[in-house]
């Protein structure tokens, strides 16, 4: 499979993400325990739960940002030990609530940043290859942001900023997208259009997405599977 011009070399199980008996917290204060999650490639998963239940922490563990106190995490068939190898690193896009965009940079610059690791000196000088710019513009067009390519991201609406973060994940060629409450602050129309993009990513590129969300009706509409993180346990809703 070709993902944005690069061959997908990921091998391993049919699961994009596997967590086995994962626990996080302190000895006397466990946030969650025995979390088992198997996400098939191309599927969209919703994780719900009350604030403070550990949804964001679980995403960060899968992202390799923090280590669980117990259990094992495997992404694209490779075991994650707190940090990813560089090869695997770019296969996983993490979109936090703050989105992680570079304010004061344009939409196009933010999307092109996904290619900076390929040509760091070009990235430093801002001299991008034509094929990278064309690729970024094509992605922006597919999500309806091509006309705002030269706008600074801090001038965009919440929904537009969310799309830029997703466009960057697409440009990155991510096979797994971890999105922390991407639709919480959006109206229903905007929320649906964002979730449509995740769904389309799964259909076209077999990109799996794990989305933290609160709206059960939206989750029922869009998620292939949904889980509830409550009382320190992750339980499957459907």
């Amino acid at each position, binding site marked *: 499979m070709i993902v944005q011009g690069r061959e997908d070399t990921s091998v391993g199980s049919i699961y994009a993400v596997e967590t086995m008996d994962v626990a996080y917290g302190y000895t006397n204060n466990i946030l969650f325990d025995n979390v088992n999650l198997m996400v098939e490639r191309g599927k969209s998963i919703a994780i719900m739960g009350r604030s403070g239940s550990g949804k964001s922490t679980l995403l960060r563990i899968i*992202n390799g940002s923090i280590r669980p106190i117990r259990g094992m995490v495997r992404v694209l068939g490779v075991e994650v030990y707190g940090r990813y190898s560089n090869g695997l*690193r*770019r296969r996983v896009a*993490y*979109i936090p609530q703050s989105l992680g965009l570079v304010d004061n940079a344009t939409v196009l610059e933010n999307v092109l940043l*996904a290619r*900076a690791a390929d040509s*760091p000196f070009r*990235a430093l000088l801002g001299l991008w290859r034509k094929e990278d710019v064309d690729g970024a513009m094509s992605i922006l067009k597919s999500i309806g942001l091509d006309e705002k390519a030269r706008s600074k991201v801090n001038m965009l609406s919440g929904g537009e900023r969310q799309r830029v973060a997703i466009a960057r994940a697409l440009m*990155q060629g991510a096979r797994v997208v971890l999105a922390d409450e991407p639709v919480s602050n959006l109206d229903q129309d905007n929320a649906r259009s964002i979730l449509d993009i995740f769904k389309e990513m799964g259909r076209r590129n077999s990109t799996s997405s794990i989305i933290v969300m609160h709206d059960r009706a939206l989750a029922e509409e869009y998620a292939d599977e949904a889980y509830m993180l409550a009382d320190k346990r992750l339980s499957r809703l459907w």
Partner: protein
Amino acid sequence: MVIWVLIIIALILAYFLGLIDLDSWLKASKNLSVFASDLYIRYDLLPDALHAVGETFIIALFGTVVGALISYPLSAISAQGITARWVSLAVRTIANVLRTVPAIFWGILFVVMFGPGNVAGAVALALYTAGYLSKFFYETFENVSKEHYEALGSLALPWMVMAKALFKHTEKQMASHIMFMFEYNLRTASILGIVGAGGIGYYITQYVSILNYAAAFTFFIVILLFVFLVDGVSYIIRRRI
């Protein structure tokens, strides 16, 4: 209770410093009245004073600009989360040394190296600014949320590109820090002349040494008004950034 302790300590120290001596206070007030009678503006010296302010401005501007340029890579390497911890600690120590040594001591060093004049002051301020702005910059980096770092981290960016992205992300705060530093440097450049490192302080020191207080006062008033003006403009710009 604390206030009484402070009062007693102040009185004891004043005694040992010779401040509880009526004669010395009488002599001091006499000197002050002589000094005050000489405090008037010498309009004939205004062109020279403006020229000296221009020199001071250039020293402060050079120090700020070059110091900022040096502090860009220093802060990027110093910030935790961008480079390895030992690298960040080593570079942070260098920045701390640059900042801890007062600008006036750097001035003395460069007067010895380059001789008296504006060059010594400009280089001294550049070094001092590099230390200060490095701290401001890396603290700004470290105030960026962990999640933000993690999101950018998932792009596997080399540290230089990561630093560029973070500079861009925080460029308004960075610009504000640079403006603040320029105001600070303008004041510091005004006193570097005391050790011969150029600027208006050099002229004021020379006039004071020949007891020409009116000339010194004229230069002092001109730099004071100029600093007020720059502070005001800088404040307006920083609010708009």
